[in-house]
């Protein structure tokens, strides 16, 4: 015992940080803040450390060269002992980290923790979120596969929309004229040196501020924040109703962090690492690029926005949103902290979450994309061909061969870009079908130049059969009268 304590005191005499650590550990936090709601920040920090450790491990093998990166990832997956697992932990860790940072942020908003005097802590937190997303995007690029290649193309296309500076930014982002070797090495430098360096600095500052200003008190309806009295009230609270951070609060942080790390490892072990998908050869164009999970909402928005709105939204919305987040503590730095008294905040947060969730879900099956092999992969359902005339069957053939199926589904298979056509005859008359096919419109290309009259006739006669047996096809009212009169005339003649 004495030898051990001698060694301990040898270090403490030189480092002289023992008292500071003891004071930090023992600092009083409000009793109600030692809560399960206050564990997300520390869990995000834990995952960040996990990312650093696994990231260094991966960097031992990974080759940041456009020619070799993909092969080195295959080697990591299949050649290096447990390389697949470390890649899995790093990949799942990134998902967990983004999620934890977002949850932490929501909790801070709901608990009014950004209010006086913690404005700077919040602003640094906003930058930590942006940097975390930056890590997620650059990390996706380092997994140098087809998705990474075309994802970079999308990034470049967005940057290229910036007025005046567009070309400059495109070439700076790529490190040259095209996505190539210089692009990957600069993303490597950003992912491995630049952003982590800034992250470590800002996380330290963020933590220091939490210690200096004290953890946010549990919001109580009616306990209003005022700049003039808050700090005094807070110190009074921690003095009269405080508990030491260690051990009263820290055990929950420790417990939750451990649960998160175990979850990351379980995901890595059972679901495995992400990719790499196809080899990054741009001449392989049979690819359907999709971003990683946390950018799916953006992918969906870019498909659903009206074209003329896109550039303004892409370039202005981020500035507005980030500006708003930074200004938030100055716009509402005082007042109620409790979510029970802040309905606008709660509704805004819920709407944002629902919107992002909906966009993400839509992006998972991307109904706006044509199904590139719909025309060759999905046959026309047999019941749509039974008992049909040769002309109608020929129309079904035209329907398939002219790739209509890429955008229109029959019996649920095929593209969802345009409407499903199973009942199209009930809503469009013969003339309307002809017009729609030839002229297009409503987001459908005009097929007039690519179909000859015989093909149009066949196609439309097939489309006219697409209605339920108990519901007749739509008819032009005037045409119906003419037909009736003709039939009546013919009947009279027969008499």
């Amino acid at each position, binding site marked *: 015992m004495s030898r051990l304590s001698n060694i301990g005191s040898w270090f403490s*005499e030189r480092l002289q940080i023992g008292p500071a650590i003891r004071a930090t550990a023992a600092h009083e936090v409000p009793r109600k803040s030692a809560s399960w709601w206050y564990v997300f920040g520390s869990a995000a920090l834990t995952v960040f450390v996990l990312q650093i450790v696994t990231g260094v491990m991966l960097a031992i093998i990974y080759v940041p060269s456009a020619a070799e990166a993909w092969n080195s990832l295959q080697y990591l997956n299949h050649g290096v002992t447990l390389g697949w697992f470390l890649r899995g932990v790093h990949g799942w860790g990134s998902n967990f980290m983004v999620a934890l940072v977002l949850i932490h942020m929501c909790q801070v908003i709901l608990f009014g923790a950004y209010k006086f005097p913690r404005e700077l802590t919040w602003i640094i937190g906003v930058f930590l979120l942006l940097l975390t997303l930056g890590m997620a995007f650059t990390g996706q690029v380092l997994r140098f596969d087809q998705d990474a290649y075309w994802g970079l193309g999308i990034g470049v*296309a967005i940057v290229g929309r910036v007025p005046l500076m567009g070309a400059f930014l495109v070439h*700076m982002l790529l490190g040259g004229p095209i996505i190539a070797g210089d692009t990957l090495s600069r993303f490597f430098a950003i992912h491995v040196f630049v952003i982590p360096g800034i992250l470590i600095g800002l996380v330290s500052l963020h933590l220091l501020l939490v210690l200096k200003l004290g953890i946010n008190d549990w919001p109580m309806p009616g306990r209003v924040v005022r700049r003039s009295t808050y700090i005094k009230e807070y110190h009074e609270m921690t003095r009269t109703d405080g508990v030491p951070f260690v051990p009263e609060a820290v055990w929950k942080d420790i417990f939750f962090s451990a649960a998160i790390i175990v979850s990351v490892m379980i995901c890595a072990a059972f679901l495995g690492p992400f990719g790499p998908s196809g080899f*990054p*050869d741009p001449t392989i164009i049979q690819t359907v690029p999709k971003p990683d999970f946390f950018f799916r909402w953006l992918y969906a928005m870019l498909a659903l926005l009206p074209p003329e709105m*896109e550039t303004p939204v892409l370039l202005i919305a981020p500035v507005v949103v980030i500006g708003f987040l930074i200004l938030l503590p100055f716009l509402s730095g005082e007042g109620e902290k409790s979510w029970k008294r802040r309905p606008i905040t709660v509704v805004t947060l819920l709407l944002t979450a629902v919107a992002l969730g909906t966009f993400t879900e839509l992006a998972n099956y991307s109904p706006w994309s044509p199904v*590139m092999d719909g025309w060759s992969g999905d046959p026309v359902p047999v019941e749509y061909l039974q008992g049909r005339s040769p002309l109608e069957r020929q129309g079904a053939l035209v329907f398939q061969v002219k*790739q209509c199926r890429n955008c229109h589904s029959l019996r649920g298979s095929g593209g969802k870009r345009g409407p499903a056509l199973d009942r199209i005859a009930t809503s469009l008359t013969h003339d309307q079908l002809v017009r729609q096919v030839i002229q297009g419109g409503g987001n459908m290309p005009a097929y007039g130049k690519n179909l000859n009259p015989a093909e149009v006739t066949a196609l439309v006669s097939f489309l006219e059969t697409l209605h339920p047996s108990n519901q007749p096809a739509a008819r032009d009212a005037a045409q119906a009268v003419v037909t009736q009169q003709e039939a009546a005339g013919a009947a009279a003649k027969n008499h």
Partner: protein
Amino acid sequence: MSSQLAKVPETNDKEKRDISRRYLFAKIGLILNGLAVTVLTVPVVGYLLSPIVRGENGRYKSWVSLGELDEFPEGQTRLAKYKNPVSSPWDGDTDHIPCWVRRIQGERFQVFAINCAHLGCPVRWFAQSGLFMCPCHGGVYYRDGSRASGPPPRGLFEYAYKVENGKLLIKAGQIPTLSTTARLQQGKTECQG
């Protein structure tokens, strides 16, 4: 023992104020440091701007061959590939760039960039319906590259081309985007890349 280690000899404030030579050297030292940093900034900024400097005056672009004219039958649209004129040995396959060649008639061509004008995804040609379709956000173009439907703000990017010694050449070298295209050319669909 601990108190001995903890004690750092205090500097004599009076001495510091009185001796102006130290003060002067400290100031000169600071100025020298400032100068050194300023001078160092120039190569660092220049180094970082290399992607811009190297591409000045259209140096990224040059004429590359897509092959013999016979490879492109009249009235058809075919995928062609070329090696980007600006490349490095560690590019792997990323400097192999595809493009769509439409031979209208004789020596009249249209050469389209592979990148959708919306967000740069690779468009695919469907000969039967005469359409280019994009797998990402549903952009569709007609056979002449004009926009048919979907989110693209314009038609497909087009390369400048010429026919020399029975070969089809295009002016290529950089990825086409809305700004790297619009800057240099006058035509609606010409591609700077």
